[in-house]
């Protein structure tokens, strides 16, 4: 039974691959038959032509029979599909407008959403590209009652934790502020660097692409003159030469051997948690070589610690264990460790930060765009099918198979989808680098944003499936009616026209929503950026130095230390001013102390205010203006009178209408625990410490010399590049006290930007999507009106022949366009008002229903509507009456 396939298969293959040869053979076979039959008739006495004619008659419907023979071939379906595609492409060449509009309406949304979804996926959803990333956590030191949230970890503690912890199978440490200067290889270059424990790369589970990463023992002093470099550095300075591995180079004047090159996709940002200082990524990795002194040092934090949980252990259990360990250490080393706690954050959380609101809004924007794309596609297909009704009817009348005709329409839709989709993919790949490098966004895990196949697939599928489904449902209905009815009505039923109009109005409405969102945020950001922060943030670098108590037990020594640091920093080239305080504006809210103050009665506080202990140069350095009285001087120390400086907000709150200078304020107690009354000697301007959108905060300032705390946040004004300045400052501080690292380094601009980050990100997103939507809506309107003008050509011809004025015809088309746009805008504004609530928390100085924004958006859309109606209306004018009347 199955042996027939021995004969059937080769033939079928031939039918597939040698179609033309088979067609030729078929023709030859049929012509042979006709010749033989004709010869027969001639022998019977017919004439030559008569014989031929008789032969043909005998045969029956020649074309049809031939077609039937061809139909017996397998995969005829596929052949037809291919020829349908050819047909579709040829018909697009005849109406390039449709093809252009269709492909763009598909490609743009697909590209944009695929890029955005990929970015979102990379930032939020994709697991970190480490080995079993869900087991990784970042471990911070924490001192709760000091209101500082997180401290970097002291090396001694790191060693103890590593040894004692059972919950973590291993821990690694990184100091991400170990920049180096490369010399001896041509031009010297300063680059970002990090020092890591030898097991760092092994813990993360990422190895080198060439060479190796560190081995145990290389983080001992004396064995640490090795370095691992990133792929970017390897390409830039080593010419992507494999022989770079093993080469000796000079970092910071000391000879190091390069032992490995990291792969191009090594996620530097994810591996260096919570870095804010530089947009340049770390390129040089060296071992963290601690000497014995440092190894037992337990009080100055300088390391970030990443730990891997043992299999089966939860973060909660690990937190409990670390807390216990921390307490144990507090008992063992009370001088340094008492009162310290530990905080563990899963690495993924650490990397993402607080971006959940952005997700929601981004998802909303993406949803709108996809919706828009589906609507566009559906509208286009509908218009197209209706336009081709005459042609389809003719073909059916000529004998074409009804279902074949429908299949051809579907093939055209699918081809359009394929072309548009491919272009969309190309656009997405192009858009991603643009998205990634939008500087102001400072996206976390920026280096991991690549096109993700699932994102691409999702956006393509959503658009194609929904679009095709919406577009082909009416097509099928039309074709059924086509095959059945004899109606000569060509312009499509009123139902179809209404559907087309509704689709365009929907596009306009969606664009309106996106544009309104964009407008609101634009105004918000503009308002925020115009807010005076109360100081001068330009060129300001902030960094922190924290003194362990036992190093400078006497308060006076602490003051002396900070004074020396001030001097050392001030002498650095490029530094124009230095100041320090216990907290600066735009620090994390939890890091700023807010305590009660007493103004009149010593028994009940008059209010709460932000507390700062400053060195005298602070106000000048940061740019807070003096508004009355004087600033601190060197003489405001323990020997002098207790003094205090307040800001305007506190002055107005505590002594409304009166001069605050000379008033008495108490914020602390003296050695006998009585209220210590300080004299107000100066009033300074207000700042907004918690963000541009927060109100001015009552604040007071104490002289560091009279309230000696163990830490200071330095503000350094310099025109040079922050990273270079930071390294120079670190070295300068080391000359004052070689044990003292700087930490929490960040530029003031980046801190302010960070406070705006969410809004700017959403604004960027809505701008892109809004412009896209506007374009697509404009194109859709243009397409619809063109088609409608096209369909009513005959009517227009008659009317102009009967004397209708050209301007009348033009006006009608434009009016129709404006009416459609206006409908869309009205619906859109209502929708925007409803959706505005989602944005409400982001807005500042702008109401969710802002008249100005609404009016501008409406006007923009209507202007676009007028422009989009212009071309079709011109075409309406050019319709020649005579030509139309002749055409039928």
């Amino acid at each position, binding site marked *: 039974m199955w042996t*027939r396939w021995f004969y*059937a298969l080769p033939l079928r293959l031939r039918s597939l691959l040698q179609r033309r040869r088979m067609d030729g053979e078929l023709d030859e076979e049929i012509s042979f038959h006709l010749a033989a039959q004709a010869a027969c008739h001639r022998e019977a006495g017919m004439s030559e032509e008569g014989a031929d004619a008789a032969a043909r008659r005998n045969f029956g419907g020649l074309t049809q029979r031939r077609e039937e023979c061809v139909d017996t071939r397998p995969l005829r379906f596929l052949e037809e599909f291919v020829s349908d595609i050819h047909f579709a492409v040829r018909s697009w060449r005849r109406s390039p407008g449709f093809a252009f509009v269709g492909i763009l309406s598909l490609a743009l949304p697909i590209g944009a959403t695929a890029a955005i979804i990929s970015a979102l996926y990379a930032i939020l959803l994709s697991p970190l590209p480490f080995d079993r990333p869900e087991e990784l956590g970042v471990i911070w030191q924490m001192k709760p009652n000091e209101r500082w949230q997180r401290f970097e970890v002291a090396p001694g503690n790191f060693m103890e934790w590593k040894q004692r912890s059972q919950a973590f199978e291993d821990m690694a440490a990184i100091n991400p502020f170990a920049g180096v200067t490369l010399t001896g290889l041509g031009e010297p270059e300063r680059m970002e660097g990090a020092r890591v424990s030898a097991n760092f790369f092994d813990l993360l589970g990422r190895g080198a692409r060439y060479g190796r990463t560190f081995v145990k023992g290389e983080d001992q002093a004396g064995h640490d003159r090795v370095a691992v470099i990133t792929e970017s550095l390897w390409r830039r300075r080593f010419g992507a030469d494999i022989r770079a591995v093993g080469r000796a180079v000079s970092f910071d004047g000391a000879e190091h051997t390069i032992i490995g090159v990291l792969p191009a996709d090594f996620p530097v940002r994810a591996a260096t948690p919570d870095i804010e200082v530089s947009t340049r990524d770390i390129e040089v990795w060296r071992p963290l070589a601690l000497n014995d002194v440092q190894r037992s040092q337990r009080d100055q934090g300088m390391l970030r610690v990443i730990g891997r949980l043992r299999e089966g252990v939860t973060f909660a259990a690990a937190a409990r264990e670390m807390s216990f360990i921390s307490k144990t250490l507090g008992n063992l080393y009370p001088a340094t460790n008492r009162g310290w706690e530990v905080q563990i954050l899963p690495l993924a959380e650490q990397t993402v930060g607080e971006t959940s609101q952005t997700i929601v809004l981004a998802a909303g924007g993406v949803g709108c765009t996809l919706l828009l794309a589906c609507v566009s596609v559906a509208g286009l297909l509908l218009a197209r099918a209706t336009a081709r009704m005459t042609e389809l009817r003719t073909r059916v009348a000529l004998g074409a198979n009804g279902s074949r005709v429908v299949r051809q329409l579907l093939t055209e839709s699918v081809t359009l989808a394929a072309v548009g989709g491919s272009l969309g993919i190309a656009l997405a790949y192009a858009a991603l680098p643009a998205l990634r490098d939008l500087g102001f966004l400072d996206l976390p895990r920026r280096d991991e944003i690549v096109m993700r196949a699932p994102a691409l697939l999702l956006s393509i599928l959503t658009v194609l499936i929904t679009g095709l489904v919406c577009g082909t449902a009416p097509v099928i209905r039309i074709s059924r009616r086509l095959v059945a009815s004899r109606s000569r009505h060509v312009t499509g039923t009123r139902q179809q026209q209404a559907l087309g109009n509704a689709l365009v109005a929907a596009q306009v409405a969606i664009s309106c929503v996106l544009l309104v969102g964009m407008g609101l945020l634009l105004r918000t950001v503009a308002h925020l950026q115009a807010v005076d922060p109360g100081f001068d943030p330009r060129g300001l670098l902030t960094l922190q130095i924290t003194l362990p108590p036992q190093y400078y037990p006497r308060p006076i020594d602490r003051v002396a230390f900070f004074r020396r640091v001030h001097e050392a920093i001030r002498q650095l080239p490029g530094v124009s001013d230095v100041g320090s305080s216990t907290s600066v504006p735009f620090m994390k809210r939890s890091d700023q102390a807010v305590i009660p103050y007493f103004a009149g009665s010593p028994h009940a506080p008059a209010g709460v205010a932000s507390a700062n202990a400053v060195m005298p140069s602070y106000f000048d350095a940061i740019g807070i203006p003096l508004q009355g009285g004087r600033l601190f001087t060197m003489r405001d120390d323990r020997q002098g009178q207790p003094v205090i400086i307040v800001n305007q907000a506190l002055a107005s709150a505590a002594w409304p209408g009166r001069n605050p200078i000379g008033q008495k304020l108490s914020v602390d107690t003296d050695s006998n625990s009585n209220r210590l009354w300080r004299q107000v000697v100066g009033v300074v301007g207000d700042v907004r410490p918690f963000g541009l959108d927060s109100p001015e905060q009552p604040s007071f300032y104490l002289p560091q010399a009279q309230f000696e705390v163990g830490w200071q946040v330095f503000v350094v004004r310099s025109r040079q590049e922050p990273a270079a300045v930071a390294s120079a400052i670190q070295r300068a501080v080391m000359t004052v006290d070689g044990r003292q690292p700087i930490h929490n380094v960040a530029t003031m601009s980046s801190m302010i930007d960070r406070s705006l980050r969410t809004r700017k990100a959403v604004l960027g997103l809505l701008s892109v999507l809004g412009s896209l939507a506007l374009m697509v809506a404009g194109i859709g309107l243009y397409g619809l009106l063109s088609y409608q003008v096209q369909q009513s050509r005959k009517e227009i011809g008659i009317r102009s022949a009967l004397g209708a004025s050209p301007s009348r015809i033009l006006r009608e088309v434009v009016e129709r366009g404006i009416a459609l746009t206006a409908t869309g805008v009205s619906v859109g504004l209502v929708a925007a008002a409803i959706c505005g609530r989602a944005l409400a928390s982001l807005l500042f100085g702008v109401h969710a229903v802002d008249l100005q924004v609404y009016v501008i958006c409406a006007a923009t859309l209507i202007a676009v509507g007028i422009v989009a109606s212009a071309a079709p209306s011109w075409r309406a004018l050019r319709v020649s009456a005579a030509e139309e009347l002749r055409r039928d």
Partner: protein
Amino acid sequence: MIPSVTDIMSKPSDLLQGTLDLLLLKILALEPLHGWAISQRLRQISSDVLQVSDGSLYPALHKLEQEGWIRAEWKTSDLGRRAKFYSLTPPGRKALGREAANWDRLSKAISQVVQLKEA
């Protein structure tokens, strides 16, 4: 391949696809022929009763060829031109035997019904 009883009753001289297949297989069982010769042979054997329109012959032949029951070869014909000669394949020969037996049983059964005396 066996036509239904109603089909046979309704169109005595137009043959249906299934029966046509059977006939073609049988004719080719005797000797390889090209399409025109097959149509002549059909007329000849059935004394012109079975008039298969030439056109419907070829789709049937091509279908049988695609199924693997017959195979084709281009040879020079006695007209001087080359023509496509069809012949039966071994599986085709077996299929022919099966279908012929089926047809035989069916036609016997029908004859018995038709020859029933009216009451």
